[in-house]
């Protein structure tokens, strides 16, 4: 029989270690969480209408232009915090989550929603986001507050290009 105080300590320790082993890293002021999702989770994210514009950015750590445009995306999420919901979808391999994806996001201070999508075949994912999209990344899809896709930006964007596209759905 474990005494009450010891069991409390044990529970606390379990929570502590679970926190470490889950894909959550924290640094003062910044919490980077990355959930591994599948295609049906993504469908829910796209269809979850929060009555504000949605920006979905598809990226990977192996993709240089994705990494180059990321600071602009982080700034955009900060500047338009109340008006847009920014969602980052990494298409890195799931086994690269802790070694590459999270350290990159942490380094970028990316506080918006971030996911890593696990796919057996990328085609359904690509077609779900846009049937005309070839799969080239970075790719950013902008939805209005009614959930209608208004724009797809393929290739590296600048802050100005991101802003121009989101102004069309928030103004």
């Amino acid at each position, binding site marked *: 029989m474990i005494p009450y105080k010891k069991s409390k300590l044990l529970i606390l320790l379990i929570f502590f270690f679970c926190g470490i082993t889950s894909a959550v890293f924290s640094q003062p002021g910044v919490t980077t969480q990355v959930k591994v999702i599948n295609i049906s989770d993504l469908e829910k994210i796209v269809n979850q209408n929060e009555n504000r514009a949605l920006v979905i950015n598809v990226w*990977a750590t*192996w*993709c*240089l*232009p994705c990494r180059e445009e990321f600071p602009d995306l982080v700034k955009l999420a900060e500047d338009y915090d109340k008006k847009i919901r920014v969602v980052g979808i990494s*298409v890195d*391999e799931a086994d690269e989550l802790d070694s590459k994806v999270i350290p990159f996001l942490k380094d970028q201070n990316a506080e918006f929603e971030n996911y890593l999508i696990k796919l*057996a*075949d*990328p*085609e359904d994912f*690509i*077609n779900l986001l846009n049937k005309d*999209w*070839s*799969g*080239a*990344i*970075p790719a950013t899809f902008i939805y209005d507050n009614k959930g209608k896709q208004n724009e797809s930006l*393929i*290739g*590296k964007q600048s802050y100005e290009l991101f802003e121009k596209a989101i102004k069309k759905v928030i103004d």
Partner: protein
Amino acid sequence: MILKKFLPLAALVAVYFLSIAACANHSSSGRIGDFTLNDYDGDKHSLSDYKDSKAIVIIFVATECPISNDYNSRMEKLFNEYSQKDIAFIGINSNKAESVERIKEHAKEKGLTFTILKDEKNIIADKFEASFTPEVYVLNSDFNILYHGRIDSARKESEVETKDLENALNEILAGKEVMKKETKAFGCSIKRI
């Protein structure tokens, strides 16, 4: 009267311009016009040089794209296997930042022995409307696109479920119609000028 006289001429002019527009890119006609590019040794290659092959495989490649590089050995293996079956393989590098010297060096480093052409100013990538690497087009002898898309379904060779390019080539060699003409995959966007 004057209108009647010039109407056939106007119609001819309209047809001429419409046909030019139709040939300008593949999406409207599904056909690629002949072109000539230099390989990394400076030798000229025209698409028409390969028209006697059973099919022509065009792969847009890159030296610095990790996805394209993950496919190096698979591309080389496919080239070795299918070139013996009279299928031509051509790599095209359209990335603005990747020089001819780097392409040559990269091919040697990675053991790529198929022809790789440099598409300066990405004119040919525009013609194909190619957007990422490695992106594949399979053409017949009339340069019609028979297959467009990916090499296979997964970046990691151990996770491949469908070998789309191989399937298309086998169907062509068997004289059948390509069942899956379009496929998609993630890739590095081609950096254009």
